[in-house]
């Protein structure tokens, strides 16, 4: 027995003439089919030979008497995959063709086309639902840009894989149907049909599939490692005063020099007596709490959300800064992302608290676009510079121009 070699198939087994001709050409190069599956075939290496291959389609398993009948005519059975059976004969040894009547051969495709005719509309519905799901994920909450940034890869991978699968199956269905028609019209299969164009088509499909897999791997693996690099000297959930962020920190706006960093404000409550007085902690002690969540996606490699707040235990002073930062892959998405951020961040105040929040567009040196808004004692700034988009919610001692100036200075430093 010669060496066994696995070869990724380029020709669909349902393109009968081209597949037969491809197998014959491989045999002429010394590769003889042993087994075949959906995307690959196992070939045995031997001396090159002229071999004719024939494909027979039938839903039923091959019976012994059928194999004997074919053998009696010089056709040796090789392998079966689902409905497809392959036979071969050394050129000149067969006494007759397997199929001598095109119309009768057409009947062998009737069951298959009938099954596919039922399957294709079901598949079309399933894929439409899937695509609609992708559309919903994209437009959910009326913030398509933010959705693309957070779920863009999975939406893209899901939609493209589904469309590709459907396209491949649809083409196969139409190929089989047109072959059936051609057989019924009396035109026999060309057993030496060119398989080159099938190879090109399948190469394109293969390339698209590999691209989808590559995008999927990048978004799963590479991005995971990027998250760790995205914010330096930072573990993923907590910040210290030394944490470096490419954006404003609360300590840039408020004096937190003497603040005590804590994980949760509940620490203060835990230390308090039932009457609310705090044991051993002076009332003017300043506590500072911060956390950061980092994300990464193909549309915004660096993203983080930083939440910082500071307060004294006697509540005589409080300040806070929540920042969302996106370094977009495409600067063209900046404006749309800003609008989505405005919608998302202000939604609570406009929709749930029914507040009338006025958004003002401002021009500011060093920033491309700036929008500001106020709700209660909260100051909102939405700004972009190049491909960087920032949304901030702030309460504290600084006013609007000071906050924007500090942001512009920080963004221009980086």
């Amino acid at each position, binding site marked *: 027995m010669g060496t066994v070699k696995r070869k990724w198939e380029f020709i669909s087994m349902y393109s009968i003439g081209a597949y037969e001709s491809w197998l014959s050409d491989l045999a002429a190069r010394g590769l003889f089919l042993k087994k075949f599956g959906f995307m690959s075939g196992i070939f045995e290496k031997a001396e090159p030979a002229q071999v004719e291959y*024939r494909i*027979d389609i*039938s839903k*039923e398993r091959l019976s*012994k*008497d*059928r194999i*004997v*009948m*074919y053998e*009696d*005519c010089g*056709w040796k059975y090789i392998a079966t995959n689902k409905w497809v059976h392959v036979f071969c004969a050394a050129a000149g040894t067969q006494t*007759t*063709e*397997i*199929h*001598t*009547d095109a*119309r*009768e*051969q057409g*009947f*062998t495709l009737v069951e298959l086309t009938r099954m596919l005719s039922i399957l294709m509309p079901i598949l079309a519905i399933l894929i439409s639902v899937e695509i609609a799901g992708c559309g919903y994920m994209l437009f959910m909450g009326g913030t398509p840009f933010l959705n693309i940034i957070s779920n863009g890869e999975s939406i893209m991978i899901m939609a493209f894989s589904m469309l590709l699968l459907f396209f491949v199956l649809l083409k196969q269905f139409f190929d089989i149907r047109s072959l059936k028609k051609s057989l019924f019209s009396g035109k026999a299969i060309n057993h030496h049909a060119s398989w080159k164009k099938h190879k090109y088509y399948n190469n394109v499909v293969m390339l698209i599939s590999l691209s989808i897999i590559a995008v999927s791997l990048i978004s799963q693996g590479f991005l995971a490692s990027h998250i760790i690099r995205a914010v330096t000297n930072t573990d993923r959930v907590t910040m210290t005063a030394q944490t470096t962020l490419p954006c404003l920190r609360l300590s840039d706006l408020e004096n937190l020099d003497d603040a005590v960093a804590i994980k949760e404000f509940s620490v203060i409550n835990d230390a308090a007596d039932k009457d609310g007085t705090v044991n051993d902690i002076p009332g003017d002690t300043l506590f500072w709490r911060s956390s950061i969540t980092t994300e990464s996606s193909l549309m915004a490699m660096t993203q983080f959300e930083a939440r910082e707040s500071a307060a004294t235990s006697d509540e005589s002073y409080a300040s806070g800064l929540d920042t969302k930062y996106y370094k977009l892959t495409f600067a063209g998405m900046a404006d749309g992302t800003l609008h989505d951020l405005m919608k998302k961040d202000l939604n609570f105040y406009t929709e749930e608290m029914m507040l009338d929040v006025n958004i003002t567009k401002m021009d500011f040196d060093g920033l491309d676009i700036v929008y500001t808004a106020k709700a209660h004692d909260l100051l909102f700034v939405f700004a972009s510079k190049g491909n960087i988009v920032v949304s901030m919610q702030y309460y504290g001692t600084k006013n609007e121009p000071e906050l924007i100036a500090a942001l512009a200075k920080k963004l221009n430093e980086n």
Partner: protein
Amino acid sequence: MPFESGPMTEAMYYVLLALINPNHGYQLMNSIKEVSKGRVNMGPGTLYGVLSRMLKEGLIIVIDDDGRRKTYAITPEGKNDLLQEYIRLMSLVEDGENLKGVLEDGNS
């Protein structure tokens, strides 16, 4: 006619004709060649497809199966359909009688 797709195909006609005498696959192919005076050389795939369809339609039955080969025979329904087809073909030929003159003129 029990078969759904219009007139009997040539392959069906010859298989039924050859099965007037029960036979198994390979011999049946030779018998078809013989009965058609060498004109129809039926391949095993075509023969097997026709046999499967006609078995389902009850036009033929398996009368022996030794594990390697099955022997088929025509049923009364099969005989009836074969005769109907023969009559249909005869009337086709009769209707084309006037072509004889055309053919003779063409040959002369």
